[in-house]
């Protein structure tokens, strides 16, 4: 089992593809359906483009503060790729890649970052929670969702993303401890992107790895190369399988890097070096998977060019759709406070309606 071979206390990191996309751990290369592999890569490219677009939109004042996801595409998409329909995904705020893979429409995500609650409305049974901005606060939700899965004896799991910074919060601790104690079908993915805004990983905790924090909760942890889609997929596949079989939760530390600023309000040059960025640029998760697909004959220049163009067009269309979305009405911001609007709130709404200046564009 990977989880045993890569006990984080031994300080090993699971890595299958090297930085040039060559398989270094032959025996561990996961069997992924070719189509799925290509879909993963295409989603990574789409995410990269959509993310860069979001940053540009913000600079143009067309979108609010936005947390770039660049560099973390494999870290997000690898684990999500191992999920099945019906499984739950719980996230924080920087998981665009995972969301796109799970089928959340890009325009909804843009709409959310443009500042419209409609962006958090998900159609169908996608089983994705809305964003959770208070760091770490979503972790106990994942445990509760997993509890309900277990309670109804469903063959499902809850996959939960959070950052390295989140591991310092009490909610991380309480959520994992609950999952461990009750052997819940949950997989916790810590995207260790080395920074929590300006605070580096080593000032977040003295624990040599984040993965080993699992040993405080009686389940397994594993440290995984977070820019290696194959390694993440393999680890998540095993963790998800174990969870589904009732063998309890796993903590996956995905060792990755936030290539961009914390958000568009941040200036990362204030606290980190050019060298560091260069180091990680050479380990771009997209380049690695692309090389691997190339070696396997699944992807070439032509595909790359065609998909880049198509994805670019898709991004523009989704932006248009988001920008074309109606702004909220006064009623919109009132009526969902409760399932049924209480009399006193109705009164306030009517008073407010008469008291507001003429409608400005939002």
């Amino acid at each position: 089992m990977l989880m045993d071979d890569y006990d984080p206390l031994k300080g090993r990191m699971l890595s299958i593809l090297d930085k040039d996309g060559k398989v270094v751990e032959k025996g561990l290369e996961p069997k992924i359906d070719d189509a799925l592999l290509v879909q993963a890569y295409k989603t990574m490219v789409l995410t990269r483009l959509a993310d860069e677009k979001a940053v540009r939109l913000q600079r143009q004042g067309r979108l609010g503060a936005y947390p770039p996801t660049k560099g973390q595409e494999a870290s997000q998409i690898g684990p999500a790729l191992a999920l099945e329909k019906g499984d739950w995904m719980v996230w924080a705020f920087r998981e665009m890649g995972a969301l796109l893979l799970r089928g959340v429409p890009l325009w909804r995500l843009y709409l959310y970052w443009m500042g419209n609650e409609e962006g958090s409305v998900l159609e169908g049974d996608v089983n994705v929670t809305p964003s959770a901005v208070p760091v770490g606060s979503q972790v106990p939700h994942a445990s509760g969702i997993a509890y309900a899965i277990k309670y109804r004896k469903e063959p499902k799991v809850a996959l939960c993303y959070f950052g390295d910074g989140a591991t310092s919060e009490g909610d991380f601790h309480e959520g994992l401890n609950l999952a461990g104690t009750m052997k819940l079908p949950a997989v916790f993915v810590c995207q260790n992107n080395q920074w929590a805004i300006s605070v580096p990983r080593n000032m977040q905790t003295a624990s040599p790895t984040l993965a080993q924090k699992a040993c405080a909760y009686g389940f397994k942890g594993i440290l995984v190369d977070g820019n290696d889609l194959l390694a993440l997929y393999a680890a998540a596949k095993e963790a998800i399988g174990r969870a589904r079989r009732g063998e309890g939760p796993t903590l996956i530390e995905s060792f990755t890097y936030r290539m961009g600023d914390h958000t568009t309000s941040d200036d990362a040059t204030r606290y980190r070096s050019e060298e560091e960025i260069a180091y990680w640029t050479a380990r771009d998760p997209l380049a690695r998977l692309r090389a691997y697909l190339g070696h396997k004959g699944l992807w070439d220049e032509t595909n790359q060019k065609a998909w880049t163009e198509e994805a670019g067009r898709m991004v523009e269309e989704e932006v248009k759709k988001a920008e074309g979305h109606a702004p909220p009405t006064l009623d919109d911001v009132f009526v969902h406070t409760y399932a049924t609007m209480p009399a006193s709130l109705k009164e306030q709404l009517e008073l407010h309606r008469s008291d507001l200046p003429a409608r400005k564009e939002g």
Partner: protein
Amino acid sequence: MAAMNMVGAINLALREEMERDPAVVCLGEDVGVDGGVFRVTEGLFERFGKERVVDTPLAESSIVGAAIGMAMNGLRPVAEIQFMGFIYPAYQQLVSHAARMRNRTRGRIGLPMVVRTPYGAGVKALEHHSESTEAVFCHIPGLKVVAPATPLEAKGLLASSIRDPDPVIFLEPTRSYRMLKEEVPEGEYLVPLGQARKVREGKDLTIVGWGAMVPVMEKAAAQLAEEGVSAEVLDMRTLAPMDFASIVSSVKRTGRCVVVHEAPKTCGLGAEISARVMEGALLSLQSPVERVTAPDITVPLPKGEHYYYITPERVTRAAKRAMSF
């Protein structure tokens, strides 16, 4: 129909709602094997098993946080916080998630969940075991707050709370747990949320309160009656969203109002009620709304507790101040 105290009535409501709907699950510290430190969940573990009456680790934020996840995924959790003084670690989960999930998702994800907790002073308890900080929840849009005054009320309000599609903080007055028995019916008995209850009719003045203050107000009203003052007594029952209309319409008739609560005065619910009465009935008001509350101090340990809590006499004196303004 059997006579029971409030502990029994809450227990009955939990049992019946759990029987009615397999999605109802109780969780919290010591709620299972031990039946709760006040025995409120007694017998449920034996009846429904450990999957439905869940002894959790000692961690309030995750009790509420997990309840949120459960409610997102089809359950109707009823979480117990052992004392209101220990709900604060869960404040972020309540304010930032429980209260906001429905609006955050424009109505798509509602959270049918209840957080039960004993509250209130006057039982000579340890530090932090006498809290009455309902106002810090009533201020948060999206939360409902309920506080029953009698066994029968407790049963009907808890059943409604469990069936409510929104998160409800259900405050159980510790002082009233075993104070009084009354007939409580088995089977369907619902008290709607959001409606005050007129406990006593009166014409000279309106006394407003809830929970363990209701018997105190009733005693005060009886004393006042002996002195020829006819007091109307309103039990608000639902503290948020509150039925202000009933208060205003009563004060419009009586012209005077006394609000009673166990929480400190400043920024307590009494302020809100006072403001609403003025806004809705200023021209009928014959004296300022009197607030009978705890002072703005920390609840004293037992030896000083008598300085803190509300007595019928304090209510009566306030009523007389109002009458003679």
